[in-house]
């Protein structure tokens, strides 16, 4: 015992001597030496993106004592299932990707993760200025209430948002300009239908691509502010469903697809408008026939009375509470490095995900890329209007209810009002526990 105390004292003494060599203006607190630990990192990035991520990991490993091993675990769903199983078995990795706030909230509720805030505030952390460099919507997306206080629980990494895709050739043929509001979009679809043979809109009526952005743009929200009740049985919620019903059933300007089935017809130049995330572009371009290439148009989602709105996709990073303290610290150092300006620029240009920080956006590498292709900026400019998916641990249960609500209305099985009322009841049942 006495020896331990002695070692701690000695370490403190050494540590307090150490930083005198480094300028204290940058690191006001003492920084312990980097631990030589190996970190396991479960991720869901395969193919080209997996290769790019591995390159980044190798680069980190070659310059750090912390050694990271990236392990691909399948799609986000599979990754989630493996993490849930790992939590059951008590053998979690040190860090992992999560696909959004609801999963983070679940892990947090199960006390399986440590809020990243404690590392951000630590001597290894970020200064106020450094933190202010991050896009606020992304920090919000990674914050949840802990003991009633807004706390960073996860850390942003690969982020994208929902956008409006269009085929400029069809728009030109129909004499339509890129719609800026939902009303303009409806009119544009009608014009395309009247003047061309193209499908005006092809989309999968997923809650994320249409219902939520529309709802937010009307000033509505899916859940109450404290996430304890359904919040969508409002005129705005009904409008968000009715709008889709109008397109699909009244105007017959929307073709409803499943999954990513809209992508091929769009790539073949048969569809005027589609809604998807900013990372869909390379997939669309890949699917284009060689003799019929066109420049994929990208625009922010149309605005409502309360402005435009979009939702955040992609993934964030979490650190598990079962990992030893040194491993947690190592994981944080890796995360921090991964989102430094140079790396976020490299990752963004390689992947199509958005740069996470203003400094990245203003870097020469990114600016010159954006000069060559201004579409890079569309998703980034939309970020100021981005919402995270509601950070309720029960969202996994709520989302299919909302999906069924939209589907029912679109099939004409229920009016928008009835579908919403039914879903509201189910959501409130879920949120009140069982």
């Amino acid at each position: 015992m006495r020896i331990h105390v002695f070692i701690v004292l000695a370490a403190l003494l050494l540590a307090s001597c150490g930083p005198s060599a480094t300028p204290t203006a940058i690191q006001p607190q003492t920084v312990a030496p980097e631990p030589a630990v190996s970190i396991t990192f479960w991720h869901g990035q395969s193919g080209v993106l997996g290769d790019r991520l591995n390159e980044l990991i190798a680069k980190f490993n070659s310059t750090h004592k912390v050694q990271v091993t990236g392990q691909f675990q399948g799609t986000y769903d599979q990754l989630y299932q493996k993490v849930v199983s790992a939590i059951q078995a008590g053998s979690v990795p040190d860090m992992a990707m999560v696909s959004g706030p609801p999963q983070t909230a679940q892990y947090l509720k199960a006390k399986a993760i440590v809020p990243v805030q404690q590392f951000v505030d630590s001597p290894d952390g970020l200064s106020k200025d450094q933190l202010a460099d991050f896009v606020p919507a992304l920090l919000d997306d990674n914050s949840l209430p802990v003991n009633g206080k807004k706390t960073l629980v996860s850390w942003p990494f690969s982020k994208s948002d929902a956008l409006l895709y269009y085929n400029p050739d069809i728009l030109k043929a129909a004499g339509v300009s890129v719609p800026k509001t939902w009303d303009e979009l409806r009119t544009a679809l009608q014009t395309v239908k009247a003047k061309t043979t193209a499908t005006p809109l092809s989309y999968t009526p997923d809650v994320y691509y249409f219902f939520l952005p529309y709802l937010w743009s009307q000033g509505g929200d899916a859940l109450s502010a404290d996430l304890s009740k359904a919040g969508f049985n409002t005129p705005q919620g009904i409008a968000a469903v009715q709008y889709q019903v109008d397109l699909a059933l009244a105007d017959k300007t929307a073709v409803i697809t499943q999954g990513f089935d809209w992508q091929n017809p769009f790539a073949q130049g048969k569809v005027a408008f589609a809604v998807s995330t900013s990372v869909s572009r390379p997939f669309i371009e890949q699917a284009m026939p060689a003799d019929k290439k066109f420049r994929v148009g990208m625009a922010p989602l149309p605005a409502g009375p309360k402005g435009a709105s979009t939702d955040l996709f992609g993934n964030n990073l979490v650190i598990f509470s079962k990992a030893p303290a040194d491993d947690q610290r190592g994981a944080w150092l890796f995360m921090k490095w991964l989102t430094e300006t140079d790396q976020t620029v490299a990752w963004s240009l390689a992947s199509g995900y958005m740069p996470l920080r203003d400094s990245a956006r203003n870097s020469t590498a990114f600016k010159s890329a954006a000069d060559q292709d201004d579409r890079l900026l569309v998703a980034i400019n939309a970020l100021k209007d981005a919402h995270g998916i509601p950070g309720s641990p029960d969202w996994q249960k709520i989302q299919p209810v909302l999906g069924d609500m939209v589907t029912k209305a679109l099939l004409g099985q229920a009016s928008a009002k009835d579908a919403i009322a039914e879903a509201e009841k189910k959501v409130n049942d879920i949120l009140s526990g069982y």
Partner: protein
Amino acid sequence: MRASQRRREALEGYLFLAPALLIIGAFHIWPALYAFYMSLFRWEILQEGFLGIGNYLRLVRDADFLRSLAITAVYVGGTVPLEMAVGLGLALLLHQRLRLRGLFRLVYFLPYVTSQVAVGLVWSWVFNPTYGVANGILEGVGIPAQRWLLEPRGIVAAGAPPSLALAAVMLVTIWYFVGFHAVVFLSGLTAIPDELVDAARIDGAGGFRLFRHITFPLISPTTYFLLLVATIGAMTSFNLVYVLGGGGQAFGCAGNPLGTTQVAALYVFDRFWCQTQLGYASAAAFVLGLVVLAITVANGRLFARRVVYVG
């Protein structure tokens, strides 16, 4: 001396059984017991409060669970008799002296040796409302295109199972399993002693009467075996329904559209993996297991007596 010898023999017996017991114990019995344990708790990501039979009481009132049982019943009732009947018909045809008989057997058996996931993916292209072959054929004969796997409306009555989506899944299921039934029936047919058939023919039986009084009773062990295996298989069927019933939502989980293809096994999967209600899903799995057991016992009671064994 004798007793010790017997004990030794028993020990040897258990030793030979041990590998199988170990595997069954580790991968079937232990998980089943553990699932039962989990079903007694509120268990989301982690074990929470003890509920006793609370989860089971909730299941009885859960409209979605009851719907999944009804859908399972429709699925079993709509696939098992049909695939057995068609399989038997094919077996009778293949039992004739046909040219290329071996080839036909191979062709009918082929779906069964293909991965269900691959089969599901191919058929989901066939049924794709935008570019699928199914709609191409319908349009060719002047019938309006259908939304197939995306269509929750019932084919008999609007709100009642099976939905068109489930009917499409059932069609694929029948297609997939017919070859298996045909091949097993065929082996049953070859086992019928020739002298019985000859004797019946001499007595003047032929065609349907031969089938009714000789063939059908004598393949009854095969029929009974297939009935049991197919019923249990259909009641716990997962892969095909899961792949084909992804329907509609990019982020949806299992049993779309509008839950109309959510058979009981998919309900369990959905509650376990998609909604992370581990304890509740375990209770549902346990109830499903009991239902399967009850129906298997009932099958035995009803049909085992009618099975005729020869030779």
